[in-house]
C-alpha cells in the first residue's frame, strides 16, 4: 500500500468514528430511545440468566411439553399475588412426603390445616412392597379435628406377582367412590356427582358443606392413616406422599397442563430475542450488501438484481411460512431461515437510492482515481454511509419478526422443543382460556411480546428522528 493510501486510511478511520460518535450524541438526548435501550438491557439480562440456567431449571424446554413433569403442580390456578390483591384466602401448596422403616404396615401422615380456603385437589401417593403375595388390602382413613374418622378408601388390589414394588396414586377430588363414602358419612342429601370431595373432607360439618361456595374449612390437624394388609406373605408401606394442591400458585399461576407459567414466560425471552435479532441482522446484512452491489454497478446488473427483488417481495409471507412449517415440521431454525429467505428485500429500495447518490460524490471519484478497488470503495466508503440506516432497519425488523414468529406459534406451528409466548397463547386458545376467564394465561405472554417489540420500536423512532429530520417529532 502506498504511503498516500495509508494516510488516507488513517484520516478516514477518524471521520468514521466521529460520525458514529455524533450519532450516539444525538441518540443520547432522546428519552424514548434511551428508555428503549434500558428495557432492552433488562431483557438481555433476563435472557442470559435464563439461558445460563441460574433462575430456570436447565431441562425446562424438554419438560415443558411432558405432562409427567408437572403433576405435582396445581391445575389452572391464578397467581398468588392476585389473591393478595382481591383479599381471597390462599391455600398454600403443600407436599408432605414420608418414608417409613421396613416392616411398617401402617403409615401415618399428619397435616395441620390452617388456611381459610380449600385446596384445588388432593393426591395421595403410596409406594408399597410385597413379598410372596399378590393380593393386598389397602385402607386409608382420615381422622378430622372434630374427631370424626372416615375410611375413604378400602380396597383389595391385586398386584402382579413379578413386581414386588408398586405405586398407587389416588386423586381425591375426582374420585366418585370417595364422594359416595363422604356423602353417606355426613348424611348429605345430594348426589355424589355434584359434591366437592375436598369441601366434605376438610369442611366444617353442616348440610351445606358440599359446595365450595357455602363450605367453611375446619381448621386443625388431620391424620391420614394408611394400613396395608395381606393374608399370606408380607406387605409394607415404603413411602407415602400427600399433595394438597394450592388454589393460587407462584408469580404467574399455572395452566391446564399444571405448568408453572412463570418459567415458560421466562424462557420466552431468549427465544424471542434470538428470533427477532438474529433474523433482523441476517436480513439486513443480506439486503444491504445486495442493494449496495446492485446500485454500485448499475446498468444491466442492477436491472436483473432489481427484477429478482421484485419477485421475492411479491411473495406473501404468511401462507408460505405456514406451508413450509407444515411440510418440514415446525423448527425454529427453519422459521428463521425462511424469514430471511423471503424478507431480505425489506429496505433495499431506500439503500439503493442512497448508494446511487453517494456513488456520484466527488470523493468516490477521487478514490477510484487513486486506484481503490470496487470492494474497497463499497465497504470503506459506501457502507459507513448507509450504516445508520441499516441500523434503523435492524431495529425496526426485530418487533416485526417477533410478531410473525408469535403468529406462527399461535397457529400451532411453533417449535415443540422450546416454550415460546406464541405457543403459550396457542395452548390458552385451544383450552378456552378466554371463555373460561383464565386471564393470567392470556394477558402476560402477549404483554411480553408487546413489551419487547415496543422497546425496539422506541429505539427505532429515536433513530428515525436523527436520520429523518424532515419528520420533526
Amino acid at each position: 500500500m502506498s504511503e498516500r493510501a495509508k494516510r488516507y486510511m488513517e484520516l478516514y478511520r477518524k471521520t468514521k468514528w466521529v460520525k458514529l460518535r455524533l450519532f450516539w450524541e444525538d441518540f443520547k438526548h432522546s428519552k424514548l430511545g434511551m428508555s428503549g435501550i434500558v428495557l432492552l438491557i433488562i431483557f438481555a439480562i433476563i435472557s442470559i440468566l435464563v439461558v445460563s440456567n441460574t433462575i430456570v431449571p436447565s431441562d425446562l424446554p424438554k419438560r415443558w411439553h411432558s405432562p409427567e413433569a408437572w403433576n405435582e403442580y396445581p391445575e389452572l390456578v391464578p397467581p398468588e399475588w392476585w389473591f393478595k390483591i382481591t383479599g381471597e384466602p390462599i391455600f398454600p401448596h403443600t407436599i408432605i412426603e414420608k418414608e417409613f422403616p421396613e416392616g411398617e404396615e401402617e403409615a401415618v401422615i399428619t397435616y395441620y390445616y390452617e388456611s381459610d380456603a380449600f385446596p384445588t385437589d388432593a393426591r395421595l401417593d403410596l409406594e408399597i412392597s410385597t413379598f410372596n403375595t399378590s393380593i393386598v388390602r389397602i385402607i386409608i382413613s382420615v381422622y378430622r379435628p372434630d374427631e370424626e374418622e372416615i375410611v375413604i378408601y378400602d380396597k383389595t388390589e391385586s398386584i402382579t406377582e413379578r413386581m414386588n414394588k408398586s405405586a398407587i396414586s389416588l386423586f381425591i377430588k375426582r374420585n366418585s367412590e370417595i364422594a359416595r363414602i363422604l356423602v353417606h358419612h355426613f348424611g348429605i342429601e345430594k348426589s355424589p356427582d355434584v359434591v366437592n370431595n375436598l369441601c366434605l373432607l376438610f369442611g366444617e360439618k353442616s348440610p351445606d358443606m358440599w359446595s365450595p361456595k357455602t363450605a367453611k374449612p375446619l381448621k386443625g390437624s388431620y391424620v391420614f392413616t394408611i394400613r396395608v394388609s395381606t393374608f399370606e406373605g408380607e406387605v409394607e408401606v415404603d413411602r407415602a406422599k400427600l399433595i394438597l394442591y394450592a388454589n393460587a400458585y407462584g408469580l404467574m399461576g399455572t395452566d391446564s397442563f399444571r405448568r408453572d407459567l412463570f418459567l415458560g414466560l421466562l424462557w420466552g425471552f431468549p427465544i424471542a430475542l434470538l428470533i427477532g435479532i438474529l433474523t433482523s441482522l441476517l436480513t439486513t446484512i443480506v439486503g444491504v450488501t445486495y442493494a449496495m452491489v446492485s446500485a454500485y454497478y448499475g446498468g444491466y446488473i442492477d436491472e436483473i438484481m432489481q427484477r429478482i427483488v421484485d419477485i421475492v417481495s411479491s411473495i406473501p409471507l404468511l401462507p408460505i411460512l405456514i406451508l413450509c412449517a407444515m411440510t418440514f415440521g415446525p423448527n425454529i431454525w427453519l422459521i428463521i431461515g425462511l424469514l430471511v429467505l423471503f424478507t431480505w428485500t425489506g429496505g433495499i429500495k431506500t439503500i439503493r437510492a442512497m448508494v446511487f447518490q453517494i456513488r456520484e460524490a466527488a470523493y468516490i471519484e477521487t478514490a477510484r482515481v487513486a486506484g481503490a478497488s470496487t470492494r474497497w470503495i463499497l465497504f470503506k466508503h459506501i457502507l459507513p454511509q448507509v450504516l445508520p440506516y441499516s441500523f434503523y432497519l435492524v431495529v425496526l425488523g426485530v418487533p416485526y419478526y417477533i410478531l410473525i414468529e408469535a403468529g406462527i406459534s399461535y397457529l400451532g406451528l411453533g417449535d415443540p422443543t422450546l416454550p415460546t409466548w406464541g405457543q403459550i397463547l396457542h395452548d390458552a386458545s385451544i383450552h378456552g382460556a378466554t371463555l373460561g376467564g383464565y386471564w393470567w394465561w392470556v394477558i402476560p405472554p402477549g404483554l411480553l411480546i408487546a413489551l419487547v417489540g415496543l422497546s425496539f420500536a422506541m429505539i427505532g423512532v429515536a433513530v428515525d428522528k436523527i436520520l429523518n429530520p424532515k419528520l420533526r417529532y
Partner: protein
Amino acid sequence: MSSIKRYVITRIINYVLVLLIVLSLTYAVMAPIADQALIDMWRETLNARLRSDPKLIESLKAKGISPEEWINQQLEVIKKREGLDKPWYERLPKRVFDMLVFRLGRSHLIRSFRGTRNISDIIFERIPFSVLLFTSSTIILVVLGLIIGLACARKPGSLLDVSFIIYALVGNSLPMWWLAMILVLVFVYFLHLFPPPVEIKAVVARPPPIGNVSEFIGYLGNLLYYMTLPLFTVTVVSLGAEVYLMRNIVLTTMTEDFVFVARAKGLPERDVIYKHVLRAAAPPIITTVLLSITGSLFGGAIITETVFMWPGMGLLYWEAIAGNDTPVVLGLVYLSLLVYLITLAVLDVLYGILDPRVRITTGVTG
C-alpha cells in the same frame, strides 16, 4: 412505446413470472407429501370397500389373492390413472395448469357450508368474510387516519401528535390476535356483551339466504352484530400506525418547494393543505391504503379471525392446520398468492397513472 405502456407490461410480466415461480416451487416442495396424503386416502377407501363388500373378499379368495395384494394392485392402477407414477417435474405443468383454472382438488376433512369437499368451493365461500372485515376496517381507518393525521401534521410535536406516535408504537408492537383474545375475555367473559365466538361461526358460516328478503336482512343484521368485535379489534390496533403514516406522508410533502411557494404566494394555510399538500400526497396515500388491505388479508392480521371464529381465510388456515388438511392449505396459499399479485398489479398500474415519476422506476413493491 410510451412509458406508461412499457411500465404496465413490465409489471404484468413480473407478476406472471412470480406466480409461475412460486406455484412451481410450492408444488416441488409439497409434491411428496401431497402424494403420500393422496395414497393414504385411496388406501383408506379401498380398505373400506373391502370391509363393506363380503362378495369381493370371496371372489378374491377364489382367485387366490390376499386382500393386501389386491389393495396394492388397485393402488397401482389408480396411481397410473392419476399420473402419480411419473416423477413430480413431469406432472408439474399439468398441476400448475389445474391450479390456474381453480381445480384445487378435494379436502381431507374440511367441508364447505353446503357440505361438499371441493377446495375451491370451500375457499371461495370464505374469502368474502375476510374481505368484508378488512375492507370495512380499512375504510374506517383511512377516514380517521386522514383526519387525525392531518391534525397531527399541522402541529408536529404537540400533545396530540406525540400521543399518536406512542399509540402507533404500541399498536405496531402488539399482536393483533392477542388483543382480540383480551377483548373476548373482557366483552364476552366478564361483561357478557357479545356471544361467545363459537356461536358466531354457527350463525354466520352458512350460505347467505339470498332468495328470502326478510331472512337475508336478518342474516345481514347478525353478520354486522357479530362483526363488531373483530372490526373494533382490527381498527383499534391499526389506527395509531395509520395516523402516523398519514402524518409522515403529509409532513414529507409539506417540505417540498411547491408548498413553500404556495405559502409565499400568501395562500391561507387551509388552501395550502387541502389544495396543494393533499393532492400531491394522494398517490402514496392511495397505495398505502390498498397495500394495507392486501397486507392485512395475507399478513398476520388474518390470524385475528381465529380468535373470534370469524369464518374467513384466517380461520380456514387454523382449521386446516389443526386437521392436518394439506390440500386445503395448498389451495389457500395459491389463492392468497393469486389475489395478492392481482392487487399488486392493479396497484402498480394505478400508481403509474397517478404519479408520472414512478414510471421510470419499478413500482410499488419493487
